[in-house]
């Protein structure tokens, strides 16, 4: 177990530097995020964590309520994420304040909710994922609910679908094959660089626990649908954009970000062929997908 005073993490070519001002805070990443640790380099996002005391006071204007673990407030140009847990009731255990462009973050961890002598990961889910999705929403990148597969022929396939659509099933079918690289079985980040669309693995895996810090140049998109037999139907662009949007994680309260995401998907589907893939969970679907020219 390594404990860090300064930690660098890179997901989808976005580097986060996590530091602490609290001498007694032991920063320790957990789970698949450890695969995404990199050597110190110039960060895109700086994160500073401290111990403190949080109350149930209001934090400015409430602009979004996730209905679950977090609420978002806006105060003097900053965004404030306030985290609560069902086990702790209404008392917030963590608050994260972001600059307008999401490049600077200050995290206050409530010392009465944690055990300060134990190591912590200040960006613990879902804050790490929220940080990336919000940072990317202004910079040509979107996270989608998808499984990403790189095949030896050079194909980079994105299998998109909400929970239960079959992402993990597809990942497990490809896992049986040699020379195939899986980027993730649940969350993929798409970015456009040099007029090409790239897909990146993320730490936020699904049940197959696949989280690979690599990328591939996207060649095809498949929208998953369970069926009795395998079938492929090419999708129109508007339908493909709609389906991509229904499987992404947009900051709904931010009109500019939502418009960017829709425009980004519009560009993606202009260059990447999109299909609806109806499949029964056996190896024949892999042959069907790989047989596409």
């Amino acid at each position, binding site marked *: 177990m390594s404990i860090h005073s300064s930690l660098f993490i890179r997901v989808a070519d976005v580097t986060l530097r996590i530091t602490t001002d609290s001498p007694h805070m032991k920063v320790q990443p957990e789970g698949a995020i450890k695969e995404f640790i990199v050597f110190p380099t110039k960060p895109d996002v700086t994160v500073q964590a401290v111990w403190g005391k949080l109350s149930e006071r209001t934090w400015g204007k409430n602009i979004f309520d996730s209905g679950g673990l977090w609420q978002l407030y806006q105060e003097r140009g900053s965004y404030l994420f306030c985290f609560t847990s069902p*086990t702790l009731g209404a008392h917030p255990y963590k608050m994260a304040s972001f600059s307008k462009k999401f490049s600077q973050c200050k995290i206050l961890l409530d010392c009465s909710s944690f055990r300060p002598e134990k190591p912590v990961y200040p960006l613990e889910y879902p804050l790490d994922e929220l940080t990336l999705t919000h940072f990317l929403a202004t910079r040509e990148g979107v996270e989608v609910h998808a499984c990403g597969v790189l095949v030896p022929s050079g194909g980079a396939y994105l299998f998109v679908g909400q929970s239960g659509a079959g992402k993990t099933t597809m990942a497990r079918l490809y896992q049986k094959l040699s020379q195939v690289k899986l980027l993730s079985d649940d969350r993929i980040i798409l970015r456009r660089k040099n007029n090409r669309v790239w897909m990146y693995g993320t730490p936020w895996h699904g049940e197959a626990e696949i989280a690979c810090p690599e990328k591939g140049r996207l060649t095809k998109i498949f929208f998953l649908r369970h069926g009795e037999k395998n079938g492929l139907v090419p999708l129109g662009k508007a339908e493909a954009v709609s389906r991509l949007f229904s499987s992404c994680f947009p900051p709904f309260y931010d009109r500019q970000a939502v418009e960017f995401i829709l425009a980004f998907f519009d560009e993606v589907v202009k260059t990447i062929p999109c299909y609806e893939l109806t499949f029964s969970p056996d190896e024949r679907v892999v042959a069907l997908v790989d047989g596409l020219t």
Partner: protein
Amino acid sequence: MKRSAKGKKENKEKKPYLKPEVKQVALRPEEAVLGFCKTTVVAGPLSSACATLACLSNGS
């Protein structure tokens, strides 16, 4: 003359081309907002307690 008149009539009946636009999206809000714990990860300082208490905030 006859064909031309028919063609004109057909042109009148044709609808103008409209570029396809996304107007409605089938969202699953509980997944899209990252508001809930993933199946293999539990959030919060008492994450082991969350699991023990069969926390109801499991999401995608």
